[in-house]
């Protein structure tokens, strides 16, 4: 019984053993298969594979690994991969590998190697830690990236070469422009001198043409110079305090003559949140606005051109200024609007032939705006006109900026605005209302008298009337004449966009003051303030003693850019003074000799705040010119001598001739600016 049981037991155990064996065999087969698969993969794969144990010994490498490093199996297992790292990368790689191993971090790096066979290669090594009971070891891959690196290097050097070539071209262009500009200055300067000599009519005509063409060419060159400066990254921006309102008005004055006699109204609207002083690059800011506004008259035959300056955003230390320039001109078709800002692109190839321009202006504007943190863009519809936008960030001025002053006398005074142009009326009404005045607007000349009479009847009379000279139903002269004939004593201010101001005609018609359009807020308010303060409508004031106020006779009372007449015959000194004063924000007009200075000043004394006078000049010297000016009745304008004769008695001779002061050459900037401050700003201050 026991034997049988033993046999059965034995058979069972054999069976179990056989099953176990079978299991082991199939497991072994599976393992072998898996190993075979791994080996196949490892041997055929295009990346090198390696395994390193805890103590840094190499346990496994595949064929590709051996190929990359130029080793046989034994060599590959007895050396470290980083032994082959090229000298220049060795320090960096060894350090990185060690620190990765210390902290069991993933390692990944590109480096150069010199293989055992002396071949130079670039490799990418990637190794990640594997954690097991025995601790951490690494498995990694090695990739030959020599070709990729070579390509990258080639691309890089090709890119550098291209950039260098581009910079060199821009630099060349900048140099060329400069080289062209210099002789151009000579041509224009000497043409000016030539025009001063005795020429017959034909010669004068030819010479003027040379001058005009020269100036046009110079403009073009300046554009190209700017453009290439931007391209070559040479343009620098200044941080100077300036008044954006003043700047925009100045540009309006500059652009107004371009409209000529076309029926186009120029409107300027300054948002009341615009700071009185900001810090930025006024020259560049002005350049963009001049360009955008200067384009409008070229394309606008009738209607209006308006410029609006507003503040779009404000941060703690900066403001985003936004200028909108609208016109009712020919417009640009939708598909061309974006292209106008591209260099050398104009809306139409024929545009440049008909309207001139280099095709660079707008592109320069765009780049300047971008460099000021803003942008330029346009909206337009063919035949309906265009709106150009310009935005720029400028810094707030830290010191307390001067407040815009409004004469207190204006408060609650009633003003009638008669202008057929609704845009202008709206701006004026806004300006006057903000100054505390009660404003009524009417759109024609005929209604002026009835409106005034009605107000008188209601015991709510007007104090001032602003009357446009050019209204279709009844012009301003006629209106004023009629009012004065009716015995009306109201203060009357004429508004006109005509270029020629006829002060005598305005005075004869009975106007008390005159303002050119676009009207400057400050000038208008100061003038009305003065007129009301003087009581020009007082019963006892004699009609003919009424002093005609032009916009300039109240000029001392308000800020505006200082304009200087420079009498100097030497081209170098002329140019230097123009550069120096221009940079400081002054406007300079040059007269080539004393006679020219007298003629220029006498023709429009309101234009200039002071005169710098060279003493020694051909035709008429500075002393004689001064004597002539004083004789002509220009007793108040400051005249400062500039002389290289710093000899004793010179000063006395200058003062005797009627000059106020003198500065000696060589011209010293600070001294010049001091003199301007003394004679223009301080004097103006005293008279307020």
């Amino acid at each position, binding site marked *: 019984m026991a034997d049988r049981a033993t046999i059965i037991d034995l058979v069972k155990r054999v069976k179990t053993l056989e099953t176990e064996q079978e299991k082991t065999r199939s497991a072994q087969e599976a393992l072998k298969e898996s190993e075979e698969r791994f080996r196949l993969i490892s041997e055929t794969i295009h990346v090198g594979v390696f395994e390193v144990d805890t103590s840094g010994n190499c346990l496994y490498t595949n064929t590709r690994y051996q190929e990359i490093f130029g080793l046989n199996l034994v060599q590959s297992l007895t050396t470290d991969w980083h032994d082959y790292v090229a000298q220049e990368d060795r320090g960096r790689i060894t350090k990185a590998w060690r620190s990765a191993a210390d902290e069991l971090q993933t390692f990944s790096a590109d480096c150069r190697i010199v293989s055992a066979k002396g071949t130079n290669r670039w490799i990418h090594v990637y190794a990640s830690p594997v954690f097991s009971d025995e601790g951490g070891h690494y498995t990694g891959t090695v990739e030959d990236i020599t070709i990729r690196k070579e390509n990258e290097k080639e691309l890089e050097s090709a890119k550098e070469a291209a950039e260098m070539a581009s910079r060199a071209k821009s630099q060349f262009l900048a140099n060329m422009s*400069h080289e062209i500009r210099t002789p151009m200055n000579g041509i224009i300067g000497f043409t000016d001198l030539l025009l001063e000599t005795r020429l017959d009519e034909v010669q004068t005509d030819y010479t003027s043409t040379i001058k005009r063409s020269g100036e046009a060419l110079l403009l073009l060159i300046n554009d190209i110079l700017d453009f290439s400066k931007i391209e070559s990254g040479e343009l620098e921006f200044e941080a100077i305090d300036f008044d954006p309102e003043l700047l925009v008005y100045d540009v309006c004055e500059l652009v107004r003559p371009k409209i000529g006699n076309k029926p186009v109204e120029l409107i300027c609207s300054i948002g009341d949140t615009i700071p009185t002083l900001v810090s930025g690059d006024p020259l560049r800011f002005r350049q963009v606005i001049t360009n955008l506004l200067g384009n409008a008259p070229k394309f606008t035959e009738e209607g209006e051109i308006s410029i609006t300056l507003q503040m779009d955003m404000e941060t703690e230390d900066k403001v985003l200024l936004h200028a909108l320039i609208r016109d009712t001109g020919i417009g640009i078709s939708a598909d061309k609007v974006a292209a106008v800002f591209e260099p050398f692109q104009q809306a139409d190839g024929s545009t440049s032939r008909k309207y001139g321009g280099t095709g660079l202006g707008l592109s320069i504007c765009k780049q300047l705006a971008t460099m000021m943190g803003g942008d330029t863009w346009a909206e337009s519809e063919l035949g309906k006109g265009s709106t150009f936008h310009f935005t720029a960030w400028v810094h707030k001025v830290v010191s307390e900026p001067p407040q815009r002053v409004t004469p207190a006398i204006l408060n609650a005074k009633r003003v009638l605005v008669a202008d057929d142009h609704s845009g202008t009326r709206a701006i004026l009404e806004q300006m006057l209302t903000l100054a505390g005045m009660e404003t009524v607007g009417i759109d024609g000349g005929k209604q002026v008298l009835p409106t005034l009479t009605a107000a008188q009847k209601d015991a709510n009379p007007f104090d001032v009337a602003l009357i446009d000279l050019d209204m279709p139903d009844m012009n301003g002269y006629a209106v004023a004449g009629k009012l004065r004939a009716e015995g009306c004593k109201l203060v009357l201010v004429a508004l006109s966009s005509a270029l020629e101001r006829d002060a005598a005609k305005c005075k004869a018609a009975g106007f008390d003051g005159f303002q050119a359009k676009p009207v400057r807020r400050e000038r208008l308010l100061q003038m009305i303030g003065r007129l009301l303060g003087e009581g020009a409508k007082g019963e006892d004031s004699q009609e003919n003693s009424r002093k005609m106020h032009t916009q300039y006779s109240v000029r001392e009372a308000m800020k505006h850019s200082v304009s200087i007449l420079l009498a100097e015959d030497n081209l170098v000194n002329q140019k230097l003074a123009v550069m120096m004063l221009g940079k400081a924000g002054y406007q300079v007009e040059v007269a080539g000799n004393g006679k020219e200075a007298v003629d220029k000043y006498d023709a429009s004394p309101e234009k200039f705040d002071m005169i710098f006078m060279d003493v020694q000049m051909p035709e008429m010297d500075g002393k004689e010119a001064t004597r002539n000016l004083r004789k002509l009745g220009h007793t108040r304008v400051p005249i400062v001598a500039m002389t*290289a004769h710093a000899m004793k008695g010179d000063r006395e001779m200058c003062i005797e001739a009627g000059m106020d002061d003198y500065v000696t050459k060589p011209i010293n900037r600070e001294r010049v600016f001091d003199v301007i401050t003394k004679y223009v700003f301080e004097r103006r201050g005293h008279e307020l």
Partner: protein
Amino acid sequence: MNFKALGEQLGLDEEEYRELIDLFIESGGADYQKLLDGVAAGDADTVCSCAHTIKGASGNLGLLDVSAVASLIEERAMNHKLEDIGQAVETLKTQFDAIQAFAQK
């Protein structure tokens, strides 16, 4: 000569200063020619006024040594001592040439 530094004294950048120098070479050269003509003709007034012009322009540009030489010529011409200015006129010429050579570099 350092155009950058000279320009800075006047509040101008190098390029602007170069423009002035170029203009000076041109117009100063014309003045110099007139001065030579004046010397040849024994016309002290012309010499004096040309030297004065050169003195002023060069002084303004900070070219003080040119200005000093021109000033010397002016002074002597004013006193009708044209016979004493030969050396100074030569110096002026050398200075002009040097500036021109430097500017063209």
